[in-house]
């Protein structure tokens, strides 16, 4: 059990949750979070937004019952974190771009603090959020697109490593754009699937890949873009 430091609504329906304690985690990994006893049954997987010596932070969008409960947490409330889980991002090589769509920007703040030279593309359908924080952490450019298609702003041939996180249609478009590119960049997508255990035992977060089915929780959530079969 650990304790909430703060839980701030940074944009309508988007919350930044800080939890006290010393936590491990590489960029792109996630924690399973629960702030309730038995109901809802499952914990919620949230990617690491940031880690400092005395806290871990998450950025989440309220989409259902679990995140609605999280949004009501107040300073001092108790919650349980299990993790870090998942493979995370491999250390990017060469010129790097991070592409976040909507709440998919969440893992890139922590990543940017470790790879400040990466260029960042943030896409929002309506009101942007956390842009100032990203700008402060970045030594390179932070591109922001509101209401358009963030991928249109990215030249895949200008990078050696591209990591994208966002809704499935966006990640599918990332794959198509990779196929149309020269192939210079290694392209990765970070998936967000429904999960139950988070440790690779239950097989509900299954991802259809070219060779076989993989687990989003332990084989992923980060996959080479060309591996995933999008439907």
């Amino acid at each position, binding site marked *: 059990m650990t304790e909430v430091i703060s839980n701030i609504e940074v944009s309508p329906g988007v919350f930044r949750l800080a939890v006290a304690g010393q936590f491990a985690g590489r960029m792109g990994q996630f924690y399973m979070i629960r702030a309730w006893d038995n109901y809802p049954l*499952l914990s919620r997987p949230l990617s690491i937004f940031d880690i400092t010596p005395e806290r871990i932070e998450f950025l989440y969008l309220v989409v259902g019952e679990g995140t609605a409960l999280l949004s009501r947490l107040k300073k001092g409330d108790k919650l349980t974190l299990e993790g870090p889980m998942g493979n995370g991002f491999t250390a990017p090589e060469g010129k790097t771009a991070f592409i976040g769509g909507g709440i998919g920007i969440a893992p890139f703040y922590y990543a940017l603090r470790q790879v400040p030279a990466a260029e960042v593309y943030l896409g929002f359908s309506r009101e942007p959020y956390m842009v100032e924080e990203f700008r402060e952490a970045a030594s390179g450019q932070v591109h922001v697109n509101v209401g358009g298609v963030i991928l249109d702003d990215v030249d895949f041939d200008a990078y050696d490593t591209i990591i994208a996180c966002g809704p499935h249609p966006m990640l599918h478009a990332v794959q198509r754009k990779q196929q149309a590119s020269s192939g210079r960049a290694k392209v990765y997508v970070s998936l967000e699937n429904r999960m*139950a*255990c988070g440790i690779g*035992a*239950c097989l*509900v977060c299954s991802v259809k890949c070219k060779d076989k089915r993989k687990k989003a929780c*332990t084989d992923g959530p980060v996959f080479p873009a060309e591996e995933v079969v999008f439907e």
Partner: protein
Amino acid sequence: MIDLSCSFGKLTFKNPIVMASGTFGFGQEYGAIYDINRLGGISGKGLTLQPKAGNEGIRVFETPSGLLNSVGLENPGVEAFLRDECPRWEQMELVRIVNLGGNTVQDYVEGAELIEADAKRRQLAGKPAVDMIELNISCPNVKAGGMAYGIQTETAREVVRKVRAATTLPLVIKLSPNAEDIVSMAVMCEQEGADGVSLVNTFSAMKIDIYKRRSVFNNLYAGLSGPAIKPIALRMVHQVSQAVSIPVMGMGGICSATDIIEFIMAGATVTQVGTYNFMNLRAGEDLLGQLEQFMISEKISCLDEIRGIL
């Protein structure tokens, strides 16, 4: 001194906590979190003769106090299990149960024969890895339009009889709550020489995405587990326990030691824990601690004192 051990036919479980098939992998993932050798047993991920990729689309959905799943028995197949997992299983010190499914009688029998042959080889080498087979009869019968074997007693009888003939290992039949008559199903299992029954598997259930105007699941229906089913599961365990003299493994929504005690009072010899493993990654050790506390505070020295008292 508290004795949590449970005799189940020729086998002894250290305690009544057995992890249910499909919720615990083959034990490795949870074994990295706590010492699973403290548990009574494990029923591994459901196997089929051939590997299965499982279902497409959404595989899990929460309901009030319940969990719908439609994993579709994704598994590496019996041979891969025997080759890749058994070297680990032979090291484990709890009752090791292989859960076996199939879509034809032939599949079930061949799967059981492979497990039996491997068990014999291991027996001779002094390295057993499997103590029991749990037969999953909730699989669709491809020769009967996909109706599960476990719905009609006489359809299930053929599978149970042929698998019984194919193995000398202790055999437990996992019953479906969707059976037309779960008591007659259990009685049939006893008649056909099963060493026990386990119940209940998930309830066939449904969730509709009203905006997409279709089922959430590609397979239309999914299996409901979790606390939502516990009262019904408990009633079924009670009815079956009254009707058969072979031991019963009770399960359905167990989330606490008091739930375990209810199943034992209803007549279960041991219990299985499923969905709770997702709610609490340390479910096994937490339940064990709670159970010991309960026994102390209620001054119960042995579970036989309360088993089947209703």
